[in-house]
């Protein structure tokens, strides 16, 4: 053994460490900047949030350790439950973006003159900033000057104050948020439809499949990767729905449109906030909820990979 391996080792040594390990090291080198930033700006702050949530701290003075007090306070904080319930409403209704996006994508997936223009028009709301979408809808809903009340007036409905009424405000904001989200899902499905195998469609057609059956048994299974991404993106988008709430209502009226992300911001960083420990506790709860979803989807992905 020694006699054989020795000459080989000397030739290896002569190539140097870099030459020998180039293939293995290169991916890590390329990943390094990303890993460093991810660790410093994402992973580390997660642990910091956990840490801060056990303190009472105004961000300036000394932090006082308070154990689980912040979490105990959360348990009987009405605003926390309102935010949690709104988060769930967001989650459920936001998922409507997926079937809506699919419908529009199927509709737009045709060879017609000027289709590119229609596609870009449908995609338009995703391109403009969320802040602009929010402002447009604020004016749209405005009971004094907005178009909404005259519009429903045509159908005989009484005027509404959508963003000022605690019963309707969250639905009003979700509707505004759905507009760009549907466009996003539509794009995901349009690219997915490009990859649908025409031979399978042809074969299905010969077997007499059409309409909904064709969609359900032939097209949708092939769109599974697109559906998967759409669900992940929509769920996470719903959970971190911050910008719309901030722009349209700042969580009002009297906190009825708050979501956890906005409540966290309000408690820790807004004009009347700076209760860092309490804000961190909310962040931890939000993180744990997100973790459930992320873990579920990662597990499903892993299972499918293994089955494949």
């Amino acid at each position, binding site marked *: 053994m020694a006699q054989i391996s020795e000459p080989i080792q000397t030739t290896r040594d002569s190539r140097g460490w870099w030459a020998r390990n180039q293939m293995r090291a290169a991916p890590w080198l390329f990943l390094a900047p990303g890993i460093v930033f991810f660790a410093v700006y994402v992973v580390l702050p997660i642990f910091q949030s956990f840490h801060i949530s056990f303190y*009472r701290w*105004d*961000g*300036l*003075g000394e932090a006082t350790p308070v154990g689980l007090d912040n979490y105990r*306070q959360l348990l009987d904080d*009405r605003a926390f439950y309102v935010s949690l319930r709104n988060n769930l409403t967001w989650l459920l209704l936001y998922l409507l973006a997926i079937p809506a996006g699919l419908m529009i994508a199927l509709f737009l997936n045709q060879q017609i003159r000027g289709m590119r223009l229609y596609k870009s028009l449908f995609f338009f709301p995703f391109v403009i900033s969320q802040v602009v979408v929010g402002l447009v809808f604020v004016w749209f*809903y*405005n*009971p*004094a000057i907005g178009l909404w009340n005259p519009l429903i007036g045509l159908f005989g409905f009484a005027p509404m*104050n959508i*963003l*000022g*009424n*605690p019963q309707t405000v969250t639905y009003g904001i979700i509707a505004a948020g759905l507009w760009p989200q549907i466009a996003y899902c539509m794009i995901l499905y349009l690219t997915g439809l490009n990859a649908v195998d025409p031979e399978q469609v042809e074969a299905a057609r010969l077997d007499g499949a059409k309409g909904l059956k064709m969609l359900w048994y032939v097209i949708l299974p092939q769109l599974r990767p697109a559906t998967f991404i759409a669900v992940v993106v929509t769920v996470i988008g719903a959970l971190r729905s911050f910008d719309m709430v901030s722009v349209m*209502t*700042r969580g*009002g*009226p*009297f*906190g009825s449109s708050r979501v956890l992300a906005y409540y966290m911001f*309000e408690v820790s*960083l*807004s*004009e*009347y*906030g*700076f*209760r860092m420990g309490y804000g961190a506790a909310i962040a931890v709860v939000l993180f744990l909820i997100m973790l459930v979803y992320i873990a579920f989807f990662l597990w499903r992905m892993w299972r499918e990979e293994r089955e494949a």
Partner: protein
Amino acid sequence: MRFTFKGAAAMLALTTALALPASAELTGDLRIFFNDQNPAPRAAIEGAVERFQALHPGLNIDLTLIDREANKTQIRNYLTANAPDVNGWYAGNRMRPYVSAGLFEDVSDLWEGPMGEELASTLPALTLDGKQWGVPYSYYQWGIYYREDIYAELGLTPAATWEEEKANCQVILDSGRKCYAIGSRHPWTTGGWFDYLNLRTHGYDFHMELTAGEVAWTDERVRETFAKWRELLDMGAFIDNPTAYDWQEALPFVVNGEATAYLMGNFVVAPLKEAGLTDDNLGFYPFPEITPGIPRAEDAPTDTLHIPAQAQNKEAARAFLLYVASAENQALMNEILGQLPINSTAEVGDDKFIQAGFEMLSTAPGGIAQFFDRDTDAEMASVGMEGFQEFMMFPDNLDEILNRLDAVRQRVAAR
């Protein structure tokens, strides 16, 4: 021109040097962070800096203007790292976090001089823990801005008592208008209504005890205040759907005559005039008396300058604060700001509303409150104004709201 300006500056410097022979020549850098970028405040502070520069040519003054809202979060960064020598902020409880954290310089020494007497009206607002932490340069009155022409048309005169106010309001309502515009999408506007109803029903001392967290929100006296508010709500005195508008979006109701009055700070005059109202059809009167015999107290939020504890050039900063407090400077700055000087020897602008505010505040025997969100703890302020917003929409929720507010009060008091 330039030459004459320089000469004038030199003359000015000379005369001050004669007037204040004891003050040593100031040198080095003086960094000022001012918390407003709007045209008028900007011109006011730039003017003050220019005049101070002329007095101290050896000083290298660097003025940074920060957006008013952005400053509310940035102050925490710049006070702890790379502090300026002077920064802008607010009086009252709003100073508390920075005073407690030792980030503001104690400037009680400035207040011991003649300056203290000239600024006496705001001494309580700048005092925490028995010391003074800054110097005010301006304040403005709150009160009822109303459409004089509509009042004249209906044969009304501004009310002096609560009964008159409600009687006036009924006439206005009967004419198909609303009495008060309010935009409560950002709920701070409701704080003005609560402040005045509470100050007029129970007086300054009770209001201060309540905002300091010493009285329970479930106290019977607090309910009396809300009962007065409810009288107006039951009449339908306010515009519909106030939660849909912010304070600027509620202005058109007054401009178009759909609502006849607006309880606001004096900053409301400028946009109302821009929208077409003039001194002839826009008037002002103090919030009417509710409980007879209670000394009249007013809201007058005060804008202030402070020295960060970590400032490099505190000597120059103190000199600047003294200059800002002077009668000459306060008159000039507030002329531009369209607000009131705090220095009692300063001249007041001849604007109709400034004069009315000066008259009202200088004769207020009860005391001067800052504003709900500056007098209370920050958490209490946010939950409180949210509660007022809810009360205006659902007056029947009062018990639940008060219980909630008192839970927050107790928690704040416990820490």
